[in-house]
C-alpha cells in the first residue's frame, strides 16, 4: 500500500514537474539560509566554549588580609563547585612579574615606596558546556569571601561578544522561523494547485469508496518528498560553499585557535527532518483548506 502511495506521489510530481521544481528550489533556498545560520551559531558556540574552557577568575585580596587566611581561602575557593585550581600569587611575585613584563619602564617601579599590588588568587574553572552564568555565579561566591576585595573575569568584552552572538542567534532563529513559515505557505500553494488539477479525480475516488486517508496519503508523501529533496539540495549547496570558504580560511591561518567544522550528523538529520516536517505541514495546510467534501 505504501508503495502504491509512493507511486502515486511520484506520478504527481512528474506530472507537475515545473511546480514541484519551483517548490523544491524554494525549500532548498530556505534550508540553505537556515543552514548558514546554524553553521554560524555552531562555530561561534565553539569559540565561546574554547574561551570558557580557559576561563580564569582573578580574586584580589584586601590589603589587611593575614597570611594565615591564605590557605583557608584557597581551600574554600577550591571547594566551590566548578573550580579546578586556585593558585596563590603573592603581591611580591606579581610585582616581579610586572617588572619583567615592563622591562623598559622598570625605572618607574624604582620610586615606589611600597608594593601597590594586592595579593591575588588565580582561579581556573573546570571545562563544562554550561554558559556564562556559571562563571558569574562562581565569581560572585568568591567575591563574597570576607578577605576578597575584588574579582575580575574579563566581564566586559566577553559580555559584549556574547550579547552580539546572542543577538545574531536570535535574529537567526527568527529569520529561520520566518523562512520556514514562508516555505510552508509555498508548499501549501503547490499542493493546492496539484489538488485543484485533481479535483475531479478526488471526487470520483470518493464516489467509488476511497477513504480520505487513501486520497490524501499520496499528497502527504509528495510534501515529504519535496521537503527531503529540498533539504538535500540546500545542504549540498551549503556544503559546497562551506568547503570553498574553509579551504580559503585554512590558508590564511587566521583561525588557528579552533577548527571550523561543518554541521554535525545530528544537525544534518535535524535539518532534513525539519524540512520534511515543513513539507508535511504545507500539505496539511492546503489539504485542510481545499479538500473539504
Amino acid at each position: 500500500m505504501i508503495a502504491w502511495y509512493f507511486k502515486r506521489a511520484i506520478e504527481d510530481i512528474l506530472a507537475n514537474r515545473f511546480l514541484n521544481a519551483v517548490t523544491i528550489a524554494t525549500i532548498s533556498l530556505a534550508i540553505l539560509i537556515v543552514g548558514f545560520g546554524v553553521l554560524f551559531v555552531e562555530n561561534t558556540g565553539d569559540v565561546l566554549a574554547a574561551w570558557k574552557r580557559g576561563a580564569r577568575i582573578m580574586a584580589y585580596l584586601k590589603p589587611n588580609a593575614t597570611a594565615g587566611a591564605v590557605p583557608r581561602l584557597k581551600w574554600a575557593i577550591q571547594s566551590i563547585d566548578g573550580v579546578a585550581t586556585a593558585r596563590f600569587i603573592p603581591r611580591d611575585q606579581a610585582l616581579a612579574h610586572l617588572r619583567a613584563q615592563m622591562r623598559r619602564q622598570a625605572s618607574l617601579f624604582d620610586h615606589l615606596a611600597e608594593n601597590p599590588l594586592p595579593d591575588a588568587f588565580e582561579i581556573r574553572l573546570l571545562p563544562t558546556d554550561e554558559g556564562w552564568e556559571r562563571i558569574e555565579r562562581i565569581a560572585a561566591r568568591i567575591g563574597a569571601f570576607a578577605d576578597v576585595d575584588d574579582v575580575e573575569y574579563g566581564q566586559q568584552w566577553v559580555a559584549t561578544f556574547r550579547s552580539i552572538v546572542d543577538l545574531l542567534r536570535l535574529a537567526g532563529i527568527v529569520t529561520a522561523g520566518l523562512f520556514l513559515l514562508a516555505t510552508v505557505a509555498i508548499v501549501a500553494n503547490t499542493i493546492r494547485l496539484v489538488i485543484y488539477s485533481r479535483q475531479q479525480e478526488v471526487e470520483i475516488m470518493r464516489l467509488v469508496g476511497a477513504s480520505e486517508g487513501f486520497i490524501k496519503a499520496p499528497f502527504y508523501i509528495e510534501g515529504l518528498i519535496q521537503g527531503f529533496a529540498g533539504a538535500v539540495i540546500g545542504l549540498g549547496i551549503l556544503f559546497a560553499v562551506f568547503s570553498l570558504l574553509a579551504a580559503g580560511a585554512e590558508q590564511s591561518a587566521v583561525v588557528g585557535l579552533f577548527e571550523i567544522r561543518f554541521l554535525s550528523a545530528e544537525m544534518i538529520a535535524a535539518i532534513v527532518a525539519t524540512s520534511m516536517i515543513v513539507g508535511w505541514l504545507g500539505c496539511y495546510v492546503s489539504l485542510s483548506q481545499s479538500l473539504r467534501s
Partner: protein
Amino acid sequence: MTDRDADNPIIRLVHVHHTYGRLTALADLTFDVAKNEWVFISGPSGAGKTTLLKLLYFGTRASAGEVIVDGIPLAHLRRNGVPRLRRKCGVIFQDYKLIPGRTVFENVALVLEAAGCERRLISKKVRAVLRMVGMEGHADALPPRLSGGEQQRAAVARAIVGDPKIILADEPTGSLDEESARAVLDLLQTAHIRGATVIIATHDKGMIRSIGGRVLYLNQGRIYAAGHVERHYDRMVL
C-alpha cells in the same frame, strides 16, 4: 425471497423528500428493496431517477425522510462512514465518471485499491472483468480517447469488479448498441445470480419489458406507479 428477507430489506425509504433549492426532485417516496431483488426505476427525463440513486450511495443527503441502506441509516451517517457505504455499492453513473487522466485499467483497479486489496489479486480481477465487458483491448487507453459505448463498458467493469452487495445502474445501456447492451445486462444478471441486489434506472421500456420484474415508475419526483411488469402491464404506461 424468504419472509425474513422481506422483513429485513437491504434498502428502505420512508417518506423521503429531496429538493434542489426550490425545485422538488423527489417527493414522499416510501418503498423497500429486498436483498437480492432486481428493480427497475423508470420514468421520463427529469423524473428523479438519478437523484434517487444518488441518495442511496450518499452522493447527497436526503432533504427529509429516512433512507436506510444495508442497515445504515443515512440521515445520521458521518463523513468517515461514507466510504464503507460506497464500497457496498457498485455504481454505474449516467455520465460514467471515469478519471480522464487514468487508464481504463487504473480506473477499474481504483475500486480494489481503495478497498485495500492485494496487488496481485487486483491485477487478476481487473483483467478478468475487462474481458467480461469486452474491454481487454483497451486496458491501457485513457477514457477521453474511447467511444461513449466503450466508456460505458469501462464504467460497468468498475461497478462490478468489487463484487458489491448492491449495484446501482443509471442508464447502463444508454450508449450501447443492442448487442453490447445485451452483454452488459448479462453481466448484471450474473452479479444478481451471485447475490447482488440490482437497481437499474432507465427509460428504456424495451429493456424493462424484455427482462420483466419489479418496476417503480417515477413522475415529477413521485411514485406514479409500482408493481411487476407482468402483472401491471397497463398501469406501467410502458
